[in-house]
């Protein structure tokens, strides 16, 4: 029998809170973190709200979480990397895992070579102001940008390590350095699916014996000017008036009355461990990862470029892709659709994507779908992109361990076929929880989380 994998620590970072306890409290009390974006002046944007990861009303900073000797390195971290560093530290602490973070002489829980790191990431946008302050030093006589001048003088005005801030593998890179993870490490970049694909990879690596524990998850920041603009023009965010109160009321999963969500930042990183090793050290277990699956959907007959230019992303048969991923995860967990007690879906709040998601869930769960509680997180935290699946997984694991479903926020009326209307937090018997998502580019991934035995 292949080794089993369990989640023993959770680092969740989002507008719902820093750390899984604060997050869980917000989710159960129905407290949304969506507010006017504070990282930059977004008041002239049609998307002025977002879900930012804050601590005492200030954007959370990696400086407060890294060992003292590593503080200088936070200067070359993009926001995405900072959030990953925070989430990984929280996950290690929550798991009671002693890593190199505790100092070179610390008694490590596992040898460094036995710890892997798989953190999904997005396309990190260069900080607009940092880059532009160099770009404007490359003007020609007419005041226009000149490549010739850029080569001569402009490039020299960027900080030397500029590129290193924006490579997507820098999330994992900094986490591996801080925690001394010398085992396999990867950076999966499949947008919303990244976190679950990363968890799947950690599972395979532990199963095959290449690591005993892994940091696993995904993080992204979209509450930045380029992220808001890019995903806004692709139809992912609702156009909202900056003067409205309770913006979460306009983030409505499976409800055509508002199309689009709001940008968010954050995600989740968990500590995944080989079950017998976790038991041997007496670790608390949130949930077992019982099954993993992924699949790719296909565009429609007119081809992918047609869909990209008209729908803002490959649409096609995303419902079938999602169903394939879920069925693969159920097979892997050796259970059937009737064994699933709750679902944490993507709930992106974009009509076409939500419809595809419900279509995919219906393919698997049929008429039972409206009876299965859906845990919808976007009204709390916004759209986390590469952090979304990982955040959903973190919440799913906590729900399994608490045997409780968080509250559900909804400012309207979701489609009847989705069990997604507003509700309070309730106790629930949760043996198997499905976490699943499609993505911007047609990848779908699913994970089955099981109650620890």
């Amino acid at each position, binding site marked *: 029998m292949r080794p089993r994998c369990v989640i023993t620590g959770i680092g969740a970072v989002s507008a719902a809170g820093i750390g899984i306890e604060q997050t869980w409290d917000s989710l159960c009390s129905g407290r949304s973190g969506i507010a006017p974006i504070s990282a*930059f002046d977004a008041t002239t944007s049609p998307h002025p709200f977002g879900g930012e990861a804050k601590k005492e009303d200030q954007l959370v900073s990696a400086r407060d979480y890294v060992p003292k000797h590593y503080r200088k390195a936070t200067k070359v971290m993009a926001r995405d990397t900072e959030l990953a560093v925070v989430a990984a530290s929280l996950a290690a602490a929550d798991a009671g895992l002693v890593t190199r973070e505790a100092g070179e002489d610390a008694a490590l829980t596992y040898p460094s070579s036995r710890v892997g790191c798989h953190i999904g990431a997005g396309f990190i946008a260069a900080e607009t102001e940092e880059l532009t302050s160099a770009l404007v030093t490359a003007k020609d006589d007419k005041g226009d940008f000149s490549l010739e001048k850029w080569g001569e003088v402009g490039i020299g005005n960027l900080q030397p390590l500029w590129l290193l801030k924006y490579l997507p593998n820098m999330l994992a890179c900094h986490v591996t350095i801080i925690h001394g993870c010398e085992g396999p490490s990867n950076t999966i970049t499949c947008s919303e699916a990244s976190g679950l694909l990363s968890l799947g990879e950690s599972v395979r690596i532990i199963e095959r014996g290449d690591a005993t524990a892994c940091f696993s998850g995904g993080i992204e920041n979209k509450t930045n000017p380029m992220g808001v603009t890019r995903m806004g023009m692709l139809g992912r965010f609702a156009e909202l008036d900056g003067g409205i109160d309770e913006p979460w009321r306009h983030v409505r999963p499976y409800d055509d009355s508002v199309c689009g969500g709001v940008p968010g930042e954050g995600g989740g990183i968990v500590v995944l461990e080989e079950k017998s090793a976790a038991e041997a050290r007496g670790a608390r277990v949130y949930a077992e990862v019982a099954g993993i699956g992924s699949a*790719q959907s296909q565009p429609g007959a007119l081809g992918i470029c047609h869909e990209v230019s008209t729908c803002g992303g490959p649409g096609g048969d995303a419902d079938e892709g999602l169903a394939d991923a879920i069925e693969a995860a159920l097979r892997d967990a050796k259970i059937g659709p009737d064994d699933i007690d709750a679902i944490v879906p993507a709930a992106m709040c974009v009509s076409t994507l939500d419809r595809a998601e419900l279509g995919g869930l219906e393919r698997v769960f049929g008429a039972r779908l409206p009876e299965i509680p859906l845990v919808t997180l976007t009204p709390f935290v916004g759209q986390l992109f590469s952090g979304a699946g990982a955040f959903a997984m973190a919440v799913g694991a906590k729900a399994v361990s608490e045997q409780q479903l968080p509250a559900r926020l909804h400012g309207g009326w979701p489609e009847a076929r989705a069990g997604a209307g507003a509700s309070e937090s309730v106790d629930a018997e949760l043996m198997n929880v499905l976490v699943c998502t499609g993505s911007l580019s047609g990848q779908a991934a699913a994970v089955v989380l099981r109650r620890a035995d």
Partner: protein
Amino acid sequence: MVITGAGWVTPLGDDLDAVWERMLRGESAIRPVEHFDARTFATNFASQVSGFELAKFLGPRAERHECGSFATRFALAAAIRAWESAGFGPAMIEPGAPRKSDAFDPKRFGVYLGSGEGRVDFENFVRSNYQGWDDETRRIDFRRWMPAAARNLIPARELEQEPAMCIAHVSAELGCRGPVSNCMTACAASTQAVGEAFELIRRGDADVMLAGGAHSMIHPLGMTGFIRLTAMSKRNDDPATACRPFDATRDGFVMGEGAGMVILESLEHAQKRGANIIAEVAGFGSSADAYRITDIHPEGAGAAAAMRRALEQAGIDPSSKDASGRPAVHWINAHGTGTKENDKTETAGVKRVFGELAPKVPFSSVKSMLGHLIQAAGAVELITCLQAIKTGIIPPTANLNNPDPDCDLDHVPGTPRDCTGVGGVDVCLSNSFGFGGQNNTICVRRFAG
């Protein structure tokens, strides 16, 4: 697990054997940048794919991908060549028809790529930033920037920069519906993609996987980033010999672009359909340096760990010799970028693994001719290993005239090594190490049946 198909798009061409011939002759495609005006850049040359037309590979179906980035189009070309060579069907089919093959179940056909992001829409991006800049405060005024960016940027171009769009196009073209992933571990990405694809099949999650990578960073911001890191060669007066792995005069890597794709299958699946087996994937090793963001571990510890794990999985003892009296590994395709640090630490890593036998293991770098294809490098170089196994010849390290005392192994300088007289090339290691410390090694072996 076996490889049954391969295809590439490289600066030296796109035909498997023709590119190989050029490599054996030590040819280079490195010359001044043609994609944009880089004349004043500290490094103004690169290893470029020129005259590329996707229609040559896909016929009228190329139109379905005309929105794709350079990397995406390279990936499609390499993937369709891999598809054809695996015997899955012809490249040219009806433009509107879904691509299918009787050779496999599409839901058991997965894809794992290490493809890079698309290129920034530089002109519109810079225009937005200029319009949002306030010269007096020397800051961006986001109240101006937000509407400017919304006006200037083009949605489809923005989407195509997303790092998973390459895999979306490739999957759409080949009809892959199985397990999927795209990774970005910089220069290590496509080796890692092939390795993890191999593991997915081994776990039973798929029968067939397309694996590889594609990338192009030969654009103003890509070149800018590496110039600022002082990682690229500045030999503007002599681009053709600028990439000098293991040479005392080396001064950095040379930026390249392209794509490499292979078809991996379980042996059972390949044999059942009577596939032509090119080689066996015998082992995969992956590690992280966990050292520093800017530096490689000085003793090549992470590199050594990846190589050791790949050899262990392949059941090869690095200190052993084979029946021909040669070390059991016949060729190490070096990561060999031509930077001071990489070549020195990689050499140290090889010594750690092979001990006394290290000087006897041929260890050369084809980047001396191809340049560094960044995320595509690993897959393209894995295919050079397949060519070495097929022909029994080890490609040289070009431009290696003044050996660095710290790089004192058998780097096959200048001329290829013909091993056909001593039993050919049976076992190769292919190394790829990423900026940020992710290390990957694949071991491929002649398929013995």
